[in-house]
Structure formats: C-alpha cells, structure tokens
C-alpha cells in the first residue's frame, strides 16, 4: 500500500454493502428454511445455494481488493483493545465469508446431494460421501452461521458507535456516500 486513504476505495465500499445485503439475506434464509415445512422451504433452499456461491466469488474478489488497497488507518486515539477487536473481526469476517459457502458445498457433497446452482447446472462434489465427514461439516456450517450473525451484530453496533458517539471517521470510511457527497443536501 503506497497511498494512505481516509476511506475505502469505491469498489471496496460497493462490495461491502452489496455483500452486507447478500450475507444478511443468506443468514435469514438459512435459519428460516430449516424451520419450515411449507413450500417456501424449497424456494429458500434454491436461493441459498447459488447465493452462497455468489458470496464466495465476491469474497475472493474482495479479499484481492483488500490485499491490493488495504484499509484506511484507524484513528490514533482509538483504544488499543478496540483496534485489536476491529482487526480480529475483519480476519474473522473474511474467514467466514470464504469458509461458509465451502462448508455448505462440501456438506452437500458428503451427503451425495446434487448441488444445483441453477436448474441443469450442478457443481461437482468437493467431498466424498461419508456420514462422519457430513456431520462435521454440517455442525460447522450450522454453528458458524450463528457466530457469523453474532459478529455482524457486533460489527453493526461498533459501526453505529463510531458514527453516532465517537464520530471519528471510521464509519465514513465505509459509508456508501461520503459526507461531501451528501453535502449538497444541506
């Protein structure tokens, strides 16, 4: 990284908010679909699989952008514990964004379910048919989903803390529009 930015780059911000919508939808679809026996079950499962693969692809692009462009520095007066929490949560988000779709894909593979991306387009299995492997992958996919949602809630709380209480520019760094963009409304 050669340039120190105050904000994430445009593509990074775009991907952040697009993925926020995708991932929140995904988590709600996930817990919703496994709790219903109505025909919505099949519809939700049908969305869950291609959306998961889309998130995996977007996460890999985003990881590339993060490595290429980095992140704006955190405010120097931010307590070290918060800086550490911010850093760790970002690692965790990237790990979950990439691991969750792969776990889901592998879990279906280990149960010999066809992984339909679209009607007629199946992904190849990435794990052998095996009941113990299926159980490990299923448990991981299941429990990490709740961890994912919990980390999102923390992230959301932290973003609001920066935006409303500290007003330190951390939220503005990822805001879809900059303060300047909004300025003409004043």
């Amino acid at each position, binding site marked *: 990284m050669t340039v120190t930015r105050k904000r994430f780059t445009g593509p990074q911000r775009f991907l952040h908010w697009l993925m926020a919508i995708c991932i929140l939808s995904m*988590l*709600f679809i996930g*817990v*919703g*679909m*496994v*709790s*219903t*026996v*109505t*025909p*919505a*079950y*099949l519809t939700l*499962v049908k969305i869950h699989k291609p959306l998961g693969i889309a998130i995996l692809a977007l996460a890999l692009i985003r990881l590339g952008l993060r490595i290429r462009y980095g992140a704006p520095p955190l405010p120097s007066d931010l307590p070290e514990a918060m800086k550490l929490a911010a850093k760790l949560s970002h690692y965790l988000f990237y790990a979950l964004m990439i691991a969750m779709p792969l776990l889901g894909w592998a879990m279906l593979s280990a*149960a*010999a*379910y*066809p992984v339909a991306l679209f*009607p*007629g387009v*199946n992904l190849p299995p990435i794990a*052998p*048919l*095996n*009941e*113990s*492997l*299926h*159980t490990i992958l*299923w*448990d991981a996919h299941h429990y990490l989903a709740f961890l994912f*949602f919990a980390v*999102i*809630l923390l992230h*959301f*709380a932290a973003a*609001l*803390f920066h935006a*409303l*209480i500290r007003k330190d520019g951390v939220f503005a760094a990822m805001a879809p529009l900059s*303060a300047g963009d*909004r300025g003409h*409304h*004043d």
Partner: protein
Amino acid sequence: MLRGNGTKRRGPIGFMVVIAVLVGAGAGAFAYTAGWLSPSRLTPARLVDALAPPGGPALGHRRNHAKGVCFTGEFISNGTGTTLSEAAVFEPGAYPVLGRFNLATPDPDAPDATVRIRGMGLQITAPNGQVWRSAMIDAPVFLVSTPQAFYAFLEASKSKNPDAMKQFITAHPESLAFLQWATTGAWTGSYAEERFNSLDSFAFTNAAGETNIVRWSLLPAAPVEPITPAALANLGPDYLENEIAERVSKAPQSWTLEVTVAAPGDPTADATKAWPADRKTISVGTLSVQQVEPEISGPCLNINFDPTVLPPGMTTSDDPLPAARSAAYAVSYNRRTAESADYPGKVAGAAP
C-alpha cells in the same frame, strides 16, 4: 441533516440506547425467522420428533421407513417419456439405478407382518450426471394432504386419549380412502409383487416447454399372490428382505414405470385423492432390480431419497407434501448420520 448546527444533539447515553435497540431488533428478527419465538410453528424437527415411538427413535436409522434393504439395477427407458419431460432419463437407453425396499416404520427391527405400508426409494442417474430421486409407497392414495394433517395424525396415534383417532378422522375425512385400503386392502408376500406409487404430483416439462402435472407408479411384473398378515407372520420377522434377495439372485425383477397425466381440474395438490381411472397413462420404461444387498454394506445407506431431487424437466407441483418431506427427510438424514456409530455393526467414518 444530523450534522446541521440546528439539529438537536443527543448525548452518548441516548445513542447507546438507540444502538442497543437496533441491535436487539436485529437479533429479534433473526430469532423470529428461526422460529424460536413461535413454539407452535410446525418445523421439520418437530415433524421428525413426532415420528419417534414412545421409547425414542432408533439411533443411526431413518426416522421412518427404518427397515429396509438396498438394491441396484437399471432403468431401461423406451423414449416415450420425452413427450412429457425433457429429463435425460427419458431418452431411450439404460441408466443405473440405486434403491431401497423398505417398511414404513420407525423401528428397524419391526416384524414384517406388523407394518402395513411398504415403500421403495429410487435414484436413477442420467448420463449427464443429473439424478432423479423418488420415494414411493404401495398405498393407492396417501393418508393426508398436508404436513399439518400428518403431524395431527402422528399426535393422535400416540395420544392417551382413546377418542384421539376418532377425532382425527372426523377432522380429516380425506384420510378415509387410505384407512380403508390399510384395513381391507390385500397384502402380498414379496416386495417384487408390490405396486409403488408416487402419490404426490409433480410437474413434467418437455423440450417444447409444455408442462403437465403427473403422478407415477411402478407396476410389478411378478404375479401378485395375496397373503394374510397371519400367514406372513408365520414366515418370519424378516421374511420380505430375505425373500427379495433370494428372488433377485435367481432372476432380475422388473416393474413398468407408468406416468399418469392429470386433466384440468384434477386434485393435483391433494395426495389423498386418486385421479379418475381414465386419465392418460404412458409407460415410459422398465425398472430392473438386479442385485439386493443388506443396508449396512449397501449403497443406499447414506442416500436420502428426497423426492424433490429432480432433474431438469421435472419440478414440484402445487402439492404441498414434497416440500415438507424434503425438509423432514433432511432432518432425519442429519440426525441419523450423526449417530452412525449407533447403527448396529457400523464403524463410524467407514466409507459406505
């Protein structure tokens, strides 16, 4: 805007409350979606729980249709199915089949003569890799038309109230056709003599884009020899699986796959109702069962015969049962595979 000088300033405590309320709302919406705030919601887990006998489920086994044997063979398609569906399994040819003969009981050790319903799980794999899974039973119609009614039946059948079943039937007169078959229909002494029916309806779409609602049945080639449950009981508790293994070892056993096409106005969303007998039926090919293997060492053990696993050219219809079956079968699968160490004689982690 908030940044404007005239805007009322909120203190940090006020913002903390705002943040807590927003985060709490997010968590609440998630909990609601997950069903945690709706104890009366019929979830797949509740449906599967209700299948368990009073002593609890048989660990490591399917939660229903727990007793069964695996088979392999092929489906010989005659090509006429392409008029109804563009599924590759209907192109002329022979395609590998994996399946399971089973008894509709949560007890894998139930004596054959104590189980009224027999089933077949079937998977046909087309050369393009697309699979068609189906789970059929020998009843001519199904017991109920909705998952809620199925749950009510399970509750009634376990109820200590002696009138519970009577009350169920009063509330669900649509179940009478099934119950009449269950009490007066003929029994056979072989899986090979059973007719297996999809009961649920599905939508078939052909290459021209025309969609028809269909049901299908497998009609046995073996002549049917009725037997009384008492005579079947005398043959032994596991007679059926031994008999089919022996019969198939002597010669492959076959069934004709017949697809019935609904006419406008037929009850496509109600598996308790048969369609009129004069509906168009098309024989699309022959199922040939060539080898029978015990479940523990057979290829069907870790297969979920989810009837919504359908190739392009087939989809679910307005029948609400397949979705519920798919959701419940997945729960059964997740539970039993997690308990695989409890499957008698099974070593956890062993390749199937």
